[in-house]
């Protein structure tokens, strides 16, 4: 499946992004691009800074400067909802659904950006409001169908089995109709058959015109679905390329083999800066 990026048009442009937490540098001068229509994977050992990069891109960490651009627009300083309005939507590493809402209502919330009823129309119960609600409900049904969650439509989000909750998270993000979808370890905790199904799903999402940036530890999945892999280690990019190249790259192999030494190195790094 791996191939050269489908186009060379940059959509996400990360340019010398640096993020520190106190003495710890989580990302140091990180630059990478994501191209239109591709599935790019951001990999690296635990603590490499992948989630931090996601937080920065989606406005959950406020970053000054001009280091993050999406389709030419600067994302630095924008709030998460403004970034979602520009078409960049993420999922969370830790399972995150609206636990007390039904699965359908989870999707309805995800569709928030695509409803336009004004307050006065709602208070006067204008016909337009009802039409819009049924339109949204139909769309929610389609999304659930696509994600294979239709059977659970009326169950509470928090009551779903783990694997389905992970699918629901992606469904909620898709409901926001992103043009760039950031997935933070979406298959962690899924069993192999669920993972295989999810990989097929990713292909379908991409086929729907959505660019994907994936953070994942499951290397078989990463190598199977990615057009391009970016490797982050200790806050810096150490390699970038097609999956086959990455698998052969000695520095990547070293970073992953040195996994156990990671914590030690991280604390040394911290001490070094203090």
């Amino acid at each position, binding site marked *: 499946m791996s191939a050269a990026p489908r186009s060379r048009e940059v959509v996400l442009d990360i340019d010398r992004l640096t993020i520190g937490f106190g003495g710890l540098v989580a990302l140091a001068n990180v630059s990478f691009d994501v191209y239109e229509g591709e599935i790019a994977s951001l990999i690296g050992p635990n603590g490499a800074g992948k989630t931090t990069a996601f937080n920065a891109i*989606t406005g959950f960490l406020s970053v000054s400067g001009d280091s993050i651009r999406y389709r030419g627009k600067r994302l630095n300083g924008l709030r998460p909802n403004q970034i979602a309005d520009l078409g960049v939507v993420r999922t969370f590493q830790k399972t995150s659904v609206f636990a007390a809402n039904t699965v359908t209502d989870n999707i309805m919330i995800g569709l928030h950006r695509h409803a336009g009823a004004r307050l006065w129309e709602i208070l006067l119960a204008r016909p337009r409001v009802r039409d819009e609600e049924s339109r949204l409900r139909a769309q929610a049904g389609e999304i659930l169908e696509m994600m294979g969650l239709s059977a659970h439509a009326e169950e509470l989000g928090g009551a779903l089995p783990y694997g389905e909750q992970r699918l629901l998270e992606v469904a909620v993000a898709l409901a926001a109709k992103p043009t760039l979808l950031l997935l933070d370890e979406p298959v962690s905790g899924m069993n192999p058959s669920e993972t295989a199904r999810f990989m097929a799903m990713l292909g379908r999402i991409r086929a729907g015109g959505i660019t994907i940036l994936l953070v994942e530890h499951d290397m078989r999945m990463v190598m199977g679905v990615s057009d391009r892999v970016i490797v982050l280690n200790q806050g810096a990019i150490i390699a970038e390329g097609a999956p086959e190249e990455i698998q052969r790259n000695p520095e990547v192999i070293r970073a992953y083999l040195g996994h156990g030494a990671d914590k030690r190195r991280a604390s040394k790094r911290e001490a070094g800066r203090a």
Partner: protein
Amino acid sequence: MNRWATGLWVGFLFSIPLWMTDQYYLHILIVAGIFIIAAMSLNLLLGYTGQLSLGHVAFFGIGGYTSALVSLGFDLELTDSYTFVFPAQPVWIAFLAGIVVAGFFGWLIGKISFKVRGAYFVIVTISFAEVVRLVALNWIDLTEGPMALNNIPPFTLGVPGLWELTFWRKIPNYYLVLVTCILSYVVIARLVGSRLGRAMIALRENEPLAASVGVDVTRSLVLAAVVSAAIAGAAGGLYTHYIRIIDPDVFLFIYTVTMVIMVVTGGKGTLAGPIVGGLIFGILPEALREVASPEMQWVIYGVLMILIVYFLPDGIVPAVSSWWKERFDAPPKTGEERA
């Protein structure tokens, strides 16, 4: 609740003055109704957005004072040579002004405090209520301070000189409160059932996730605060023109606590919760007054509240509706039936 049950219930409420001839009972229902409106407004914030406003009575009092002042007229000595004179307005206009001014303060509090949420919101709202109480107490030129605003006109509808309907007696006031109650209910029900209400609920449930799909956190919460404060202001206006006197004690913390108790025991985040809680804790003190000493009243009140919260932590309405579902709704089909 389905349409039939709702219709029956509303019909019953409309019929009460026809057969309940004791004016004192009607008085209890009017006051309970006013508190139910206030509790419903608090529920929008507390139940649907999850933000605890412990100064909610401020909006109630602001609505009341504004409505009283606009209906009485007032003058303010701004400089030695200039006095601003505000002429008395028809009460229904004053009532609307009370709603608008309360809503404005809701917006202000929302803007200020939703940047700092949770415990900070609680503190900001408590302080706000206390500041407003001190203003009402000390700005004697405007509010008469502890001497209270007296002779507040009763509610009127119409245009002075042409046609006017004045709500002197209990029965029209009962209907006025009932209609306001129903309107507030409809406003809240439509709001929380809409995309805007879904956004509020989403923030309560999982703020980062809501923000990640495009929900504007500040905007949703400020909207909830404005609507909530405006409805509380309406309740305050009704109260003022019914009791016809208002003093700074209207801002006492105990009234906010009463509203919170109504919402929490009835079931926060449910439409019927504040009504059920409001009926119980609005009527109970009066009912007890006839049979128990004042000390016993408070003991019973407190014990009942603790029992409800202890045994039904989500409140009465969620407990009853889940019991109802289990008892009467078709259980999930078994394999046998499906075959």
